[in-house]
């Protein structure tokens, strides 16, 4: 509408298309039509308010909420708050680390968002620089590191201090070393929440520092490159094998919606399957009344039986994150199956179905409970597929019947032990289908101690590196 941003008219389209390209690089599908929409958004909103532009562009470019974190990080790179040191930072820089920590503690206690952003800027400027970071220097090796900043600033150690300052303001000064038992009479109840609230604020501040460091580095090295490398992928695209604790926790939060979505897809498939098959005998019989012309085809009646699932999971070391997530997913979808049984192994097999059923209330502690309450390992702690499969075929084979689909989860790394392929063959002979989900990509199969190819000859093996792929496989492979 307004033409006030005429000078930006050549820069802005370029920036927008570069931004869109970066989003595409992260697997967000943005077509030209959306880009045009985004340009219309910029025109309608003007360039006055950054947060509004962020929301407006998100509305035009995004199609699902899971894309939002990637979008935000990329947006901060292409539409930064400012360049170089931010204006507010220059106005009143902190003299030293102690003062910075003092002000950070204050801002955390007050939950002052703008002050926290500014402090993140100051912190990166003061503590994060490495190499020759002079503003006139050549684009060389220097830069800013969020890790270094946080390492020196140690915001997590401020927790006790912020808690204490909050309490002296409110009620009597107890020492702030955690949520003390609620002896306080008035307003005492919310006191126990404080520690967690401040922990969340500190985590938020760390995010701000990371964003700020990315922005500063991007200025130096070129936005496109940092947008490609420095922005973390969305949770459902994180590789299971390299996911850290926070990413796994975030994945677990998506579990219920994902389970519901997959259940809907399975129901749709089931309905189609029930419609699809023609019952020849009944169709011919029916055609007799129309002179032998099959006018009304009869469909085969769908047996109201639901499939049985047996999960066989490697819960050792790195594969544990993948296995735990899948177990919880299948458990969350349990009403889709007539029976779900879960077995875990490292080098010995034990049934853990009951641990998972009760584990719905505490998904984070599942791995620990399996390790302590079930017998999954014998004399040593490294995984041995051969003896685990052998033991399963020996002792638990009655769990597998002609209606059972078996899912084996694991990387098929045998640590040099005998892979015991005949045991897997015995399981496969008894089950309706056996699928193997491998968290490693096909390129790694058969390398080192991996027996993936040997197993793949007996059963279908699928690479399943992230949650999105797992969702696809679950809807495709599971019988209806």
């Amino acid at each position, binding site marked *: 509408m307004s033409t006030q941003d005429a000078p930006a008219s050549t820069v802005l389209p370029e920036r927008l298309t570069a931004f869109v390209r970066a989003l595409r690089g992260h697997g967000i599908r943005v077509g030209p039509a959306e880009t045009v929409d985004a340009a219309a958004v910029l025109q309608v909103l003007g360039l006055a308010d950054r947060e*509004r532009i962020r*929301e407006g562009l998100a*509305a035009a470019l995004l199609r699902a909420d899971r894309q939002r974190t990637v979008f935000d990080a990329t947006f901060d790179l292409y539409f930064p708050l400012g360049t170089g040191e931010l204006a507010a930072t220059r106005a009143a820089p902190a003299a030293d680390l102690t003062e910075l920590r003092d002000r950070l503690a204050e801002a955390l206690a007050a939950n002052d968002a703008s002050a926290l952003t500014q402090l993140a800027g100051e912190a990166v400027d003061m503590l994060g620089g490495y190499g020759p970071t002079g503003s006139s220097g050549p684009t060389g090796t220097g830069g800013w590191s969020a890790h270094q900043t946080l390492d020196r600033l140690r915001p997590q150690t401020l927790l006790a201090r912020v808690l204490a300052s909050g309490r002296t303001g409110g009620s009597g000064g107890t020492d702030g070393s955690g949520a003390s038992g*609620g002896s306080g009479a008035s307003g005492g*109840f919310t006191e126990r*929440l404080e520690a967690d*609230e401040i922990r969340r604020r500190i985590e938020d501040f760390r995010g701000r520092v990371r964003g700020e460091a990315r922005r500063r580095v991007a200025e130096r090295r070129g936005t496109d490159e940092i947008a490609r490398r420095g922005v973390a992928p969305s949770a459902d695209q994180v590789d299971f094998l390299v996911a850290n604790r926070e990413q796994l926790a975030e994945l677990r939060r998506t579990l219920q919606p994902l389970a519901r979505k997959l259940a*809907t897809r399975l129901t749709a498939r089931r309905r189609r399957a029930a419609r699809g098959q023609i019952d020849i005998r009944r169709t011919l019989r029916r055609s007799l009344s129309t002179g032998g012309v099959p006018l009304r085809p009869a469909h085969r009646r769908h047996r109201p039986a639901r499939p049985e699932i047996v999960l066989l999971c490697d819960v050792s070391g790195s594969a544990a994150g993948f296995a735990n997530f899948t177990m919880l997913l299948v458990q969350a979808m349990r009403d889709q199956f007539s029976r779900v049984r879960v077995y875990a192994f490292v080098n010995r097999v034990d049934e853990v179905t009951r641990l998972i059923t009760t584990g719905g209330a505490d998904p984070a502690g599942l791995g620990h409970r399996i390790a302590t309450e079930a017998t999954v390992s014998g004399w040593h702690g490294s995984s041995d597929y051969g003896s685990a499969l052998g033991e399963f075929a020996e002792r638990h084979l009655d769990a597998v019947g002609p209606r059972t689909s078996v899912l084996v989860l694991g990387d098929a790394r045998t640590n040099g032990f005998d892979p015991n392929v005949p045991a897997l063959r015995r399981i496969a002979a008894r089950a309706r289908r056996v699928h193997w989900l491998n968290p490693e990509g096909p390129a790694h199969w058969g390398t080192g101690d991996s027996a993936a190819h040997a197993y793949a000859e007996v059963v279908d093996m699928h690479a399943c590196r992230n949650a999105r792929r797992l969702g696809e496989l679950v809807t495709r492979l599971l019988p209806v």
Partner: protein
Amino acid sequence: MAEQEDRPGGDGTGFFSSVDDVVGRLAEVGYLASTAVATTVFLADRLGKPLLVEGPAGVGKTELAKAVARVGGARLVRLQCYEGIDESRALYEWNHAKQLLRITAGRDESWDDTRTDIFSDEFLLTRPLLTAIRGDEPTVLLIDETDKADVEVEGLLLEVLSDFQVTVPELGTITATRRPFTVLTSNATRELSEALRRRCLFLHLDFPDAELEQRIVRLKVPGLDAVLADSLVRVIAALRAMELRKAPSVAETIDWARTLLALGADTLDESVVRDSLGVVLKHQDDIAKAAQGLTLL
């Protein structure tokens, strides 16, 4: 007609003049909007695109459409989607019974006369989508729980939502004289098709931040003490941070506030929280876990 609103292409519903206007006028009718909501509503209004609102249950998706209707003084046309909804429920249907009566009544007429007559407006039963397009007055079209409908219905929506027109073979194409402000809501139980998403502006409506939620509680439950509202919202935030099967939404926050008001509680303490936790959490596992997390026992 009005020269402001009829810009080339005829897009835009023209309810709002700026983002601040959206915030102010939605607040007047009792809907407190975050920056994301206000900006997106303004864009939907300006660009004349449908607004797809996704988010957990109870955060005010349907309420948003109602609030916009109240602000714009528009009639609200609602299409509630469910499994098995079809063209005749969503778009239009011929009134067969009445057509038959008409044919029997005019027995000695020629077929041509009858035909032109029975396929006229009088025998057309308009369903929500067609109703929303035909009227001249400002309209808000709410397509609720779009994800519950079958995939085929999405195909039906495509024509309606991209060009705001409906083709009835016997009558020709009916184009909207005035674009309705369209809101689609979805709980994301199923992925909506890419084609439908592409035609919409996307808004993910999440739980509001603490400050906004406090204002919402104070607005909806005016009798509640400010300090109590503050601690209430903080407890809710703590509950949401736990890994629960169903995190409490805004509707539950307001319910809880009303409960506390009815109980006459003036501060939150352990016994009050323990006794009323069932208002906020709907699963026994969740209640047990929350009790443990809040160290109630």
